[in-house]
């Protein structure tokens, strides 16, 4: 079980390290289901 958990964390870390930084346009993504314009 410990190995499975460690593999899962390692996989997530690997994915995060290989992923590009988010685009600035994504700043408000996932705050609400339907975006709200606060501007």
């Amino acid at each position, binding site marked *: 079980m410990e190995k499975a958990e460690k593999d899962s964390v390692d996989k997530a870390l690997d994915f995060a390290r290989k992923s590009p930084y988010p685009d600035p346009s994504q700043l408000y*993504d*996932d*705050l*609400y*289901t*339907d975006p*709200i*314009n606060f501007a």
Partner: protein
Amino acid sequence: MQVEAINEAIHEEMSNDETVYYMGEDVRASIYGASKDLFNRFGENRVLDTPLSENGFIGAAVGSSLVGMRPVVETLTSFMWVAMDQLVSQLAKMKYMFGGQASLPVTIKADMYYNGSMAAHHSDRSYPFFMNMPGIKVIVPTFPEDAKGLMKTAIRDNDPCIVFVDGNLGGLKGDVPENNEIEQGELIIPFGSARVVKEGTDCTVVGIVNSNIHALSASEKLEKEGISIEIIDPRTLVPFDKETILKSVEKTGRLVVVDPAHKVCSAASEIISVVTEEGFWNLQAPPVKVASEQVHIPFSPALEPLIYPTEEKIIEAVKKTLE
């Protein structure tokens, strides 16, 4: 009455969707009226009496929403302070922190009982705190029809919603259309859509919850002096329908915002800020804020009435914009 309209909304939504359940302190006995007959109709698995442990049961609501339930939690604004960890650190932030993988369709029905010698620990009007917290929708109904329609929308919404119910309006009477009188078959009021309570030409008065009732009575007196005010109820503060208010100010050139919350960083502060930034050149006079004094709510019946917006304060504010 407003409380009956809210009760009707909850009955309808629990009937429509088996994932909706209701919980709170003494809700089976319906101490505050909004949960009347829910226990008899939907039973012990869907109507839960909770211990006096807001952080615990709001945490349970957060958890159950993550696995597909749609909890409706009844509480009082004054008791929400002890649940701020769950409300703010979890409920408001979880969707964003999980990159949109979590959905938290939690509705909090937050009753505001003030103006009845309930003193500082039981008189909170705390919606400005939650306007300041991204991730939560803030609903502030005044009239019974809106209370029902917005409550139904909140329960169906996939984001955390706090419906702030003004305890002074529980007995407010008003027409609520029957479902068979409505084209789409039921009363659903979208968020971010203000109600023009009364049209007018000389000054725009934006009212939050009970303030709309004071604004209506102020309007009658001002009419006798030849002053016509336009009253707007935003109905939701997040999302906020600024267009209706800006359009009204474009017509009247004047703005008074009436808000029973404490005046510093109130909803009124934010609304005046928006109009000043985006509608400045339409203003003929500085906007006026009529909000509660920046002091704790005293128990004393001699002192408490000095705190809140009143009809007289609204009349004075409107006249100030016309000087």
